[in-house]
């Protein structure tokens, strides 16, 4: 109805699919195999042509010699006084299309076949100086004879020119040796016919083989690539919600696919683990945030539930402010954790900070907190870094402060009044070691593996009171891991006595400009 060109898209689509087909491994393999087959077929045809020609012409040669010998057999004593020879053609049986001619040594024609055309257009087939010399009675042929090519009434002939000897009248005075020159020719057309037939057989055979093997190879390849397709189908089923990936046994057993299968498996496992962790973190974070918001909301609603005195409002507002501060620190900690856990962009300059200065600074900063809790930091303030003057580590400066203050605050918060928090900083060749130990109640053995988990609280009812967000140690670990260091926590498990304390050890590689 309309004159829009509906077939416009079709060639493009087929071209696209052809391109896809050309890129497919199966297609390329099939094309390669067929090309090799075609090449070998051409070679076989060429070789068979050469071989057949050789065989047939040799047989022809032998046959010409045989027939010429039978012509020689027909040369007889002419029974004349000069002991001449003659050709007796009566008993000669040769195919009618063959031609022959016999000369004696004096150049006299002894006889020839009735269809002898003359040697006017004859050419020798031998190489060398003699090539092209017109044959004839003149000149002696070589002992084994020579081949001439002739054209008889448009039919190509091959003619053997040979010398034959015959002893005439052996009875009288020992006989006399007469030499004759025999020319014997036979048409070569049937030779070529036979050769063409043989070559045609090979050529047709090769084509048939190609036609049969093409689809067979395609089918075999399709079957052979089955493990790959199975693997692809199973891999395609993996999604964010369904991480399960069990590669087919066929792919596992295929040497070419085994490394790919293994890589896929391990990548998926790692991805799933980090995804589950991430999901757990989001869920935990949502819980914490919702709880914090619930606290604020309920504080405000409680305040507005009924008329209250100015003092009550004042106290309520202070509580609301405290709740806001808690929410603020929770958000700040979550952001700090996200920052510490995110990968450093490639090419970014390596961060660098003096850990000793950082420790001194943080200890000085937290001295008021320590005093408030009646805890002594040893060594205090300016001496906190011990004998270490400077030790550079590759941690962003703000992260370094966060790391040290998180660990120190933790120690202070878990210390009873009158206790001592020890801070030790040592620097060996290429390792800075920070040890912070307190004399608090320690951590139960079953909780130790979890203290670095996000939102983990050893004793929630207590730590919530102290205002911790449950992220401090997770942030510390993320910072240390990012800098390529280690962090460990120890609490003497043997005793359950109070005051056994907790020791956190951080090692960080010393900054090197390389």
């Amino acid at each position, binding site marked *: 109805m309309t004159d829009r060109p509906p077939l416009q898209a079709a060639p493009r689509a087929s071209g696209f699919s052809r391109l896809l087909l050309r890129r497919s491994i199966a297609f390329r393999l099939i094309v390669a195999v067929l090309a090799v087959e075609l090449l070998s077929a051409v070679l076989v045809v060429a070789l068979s042509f050469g071989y057949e020609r050789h065989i047939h012409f040799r047989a022809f040669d032998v046959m010409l010699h045989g027939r010429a010998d039978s012509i020689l057999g027909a040369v007889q004593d002419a029974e004349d006084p000069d002991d001449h020879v003659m050709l007796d053609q009566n008993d000669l049986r040769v195919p009618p299309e063959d031609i022959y001619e016999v000369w004696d040594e004096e150049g006299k024609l002894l006889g020839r076949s009735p269809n002898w055309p003359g040697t006017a257009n004859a050419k020798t087939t031998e190489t060398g100086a003699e090539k092209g010399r017109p044959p004839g009675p003149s000149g002696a042929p070589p002992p084994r004879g020579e081949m001439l090519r002739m054209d008889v009434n448009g039919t190509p002939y091959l003619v053997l020119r040979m010398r034959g000897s015959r002893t005439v009248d052996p009875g009288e005075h020992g006989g006399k040796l007469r030499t004759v020159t025999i020319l014997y020719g036979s048409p070569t057309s049937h030779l070529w016919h036979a050769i063409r037939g043989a070559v045609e057989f090979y050529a047709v055979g090769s084509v048939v083989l190609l036609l049969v093997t093409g689809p067979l190879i395609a089918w075999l390849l399709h079957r052979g690539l089955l493990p790959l397709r199975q693997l692809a189908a199973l891999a395609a089923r993996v999604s964010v919600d369904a991480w399960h990936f069990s590669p087919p046994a066929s792919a596992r057993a295929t040497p070419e696919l085994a490394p790919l299968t293994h890589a896929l498996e391990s990548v998926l496992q790692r991805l799933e683990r980090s995804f589950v962790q991430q999901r757990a973190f989001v*869920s935990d974070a*949502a*819980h914490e945030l*919702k*709880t914090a*918001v*619930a*606290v*604020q*909301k*309920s*504080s405000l*609603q*409680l305040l507005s*539930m*009924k008329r209250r005195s100015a003092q009550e409002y004042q106290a309520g507002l202070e*509580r609301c402010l*405290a*709740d806001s501060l*808690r929410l603020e620190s929770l958000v700040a900690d979550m952001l700090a954790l996200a920052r510490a856990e995110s990968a450093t962009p490639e090419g970014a300059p390596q961060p660098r900070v003096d850990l000793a200065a950082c420790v001194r600074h943080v200890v000085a900063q937290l001295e008021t907190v320590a005093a408030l809790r009646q805890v002594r930091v040893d060594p205090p303030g300016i001496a906190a870094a011990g004998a270490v003057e400077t030790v550079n580590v590759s941690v962003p400066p703000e992260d370094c402060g966060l790391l040290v203050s998180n660990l120190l605050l933790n120690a202070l918060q878990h210390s009873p009044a009158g206790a001592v928090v020890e801070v030790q900083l040592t620097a060996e060749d290429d390792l800075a070691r920070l040890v912070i130990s307190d004399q608090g109640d320690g951590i139960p053995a079953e909780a130790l593996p979890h203290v670095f988990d996000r939102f983990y*609280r050893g*004793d*929630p*009812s207590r730590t*919530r*009171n102290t205002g911790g967000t449950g992220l401090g140690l997770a942030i510390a670990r993320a910072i240390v891991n990012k800098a390529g260091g280690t962090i460990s926590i120890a609490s003497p498990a043997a005793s359950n006595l109070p005051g056994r304390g907790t020791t956190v050890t951080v090692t960080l590689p010393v900054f090197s400009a390389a």
Partner: protein
Amino acid sequence: MRVLLVEDEVRLAENLAAALRDGPGFAVDWAADGEAGDEFARNACYDLIVLDLMLPRMDGQTVLKRLRARRDATPVLVLTAKDGSESIIALLNAGADDYLAKPFDLGELLARAKALIRRGKGAAHPTLSILDLEVNTLEQTVRRRGTAVDLSPTEYRVLEYLIHRPRVIVSKRELLEHLYDYNWEHHSNVIEVHVSNLRRKLDAAVPDAEPIVETMRGRGYRLAPGLAWDQQTPAAPDTGHRLDMERDQ
């Protein structure tokens, strides 16, 4: 009415407890973790349990399952920060009566708490009436034959508890258990004073009224002794506190 609050977040628990005490005038006990909550709930003297799900030591779901496994029918209002209908379905199937997602509205929480207590005691409407006595639990007002009766908060709470259980002998111990929280020292003579004041105020409200609160010496108190069983306004008999009754009688 006495409420058990199981919530690990201190500030939220403080606010909830204050709201439950200030608003409907409930006695509130607070448990900061699952194990303590489970321990408290074993006393079986609560008219409602407000239960957080993410709790240290023992999660809320386990507390709930243990409660129901003891055949304790106390209404449970679950507080959850989890999204998703699956967990809510699992909760309701585990025996929760209602849930609220954090951050919730305090007014909604109080309304649901009151509704759950009411339902748990077989009353559908917030206004309860028996003979010529009418108690509006929303406004916390009491009328006898249309005349308002002015009661102290404690007297009102005693009446509110009794009107949910008409004609049943309620022991002093039961009243104490349901009207005062854990921190209160249980002096039974305090109850006696409040009940006698309540009786006096109710009877003085109208001329030549029949005594509506009966004291049964050594056994307890009974509301509306003259009421026949079939005149009872709250339709369903109380099934929620089977254990209390067995112990008290």
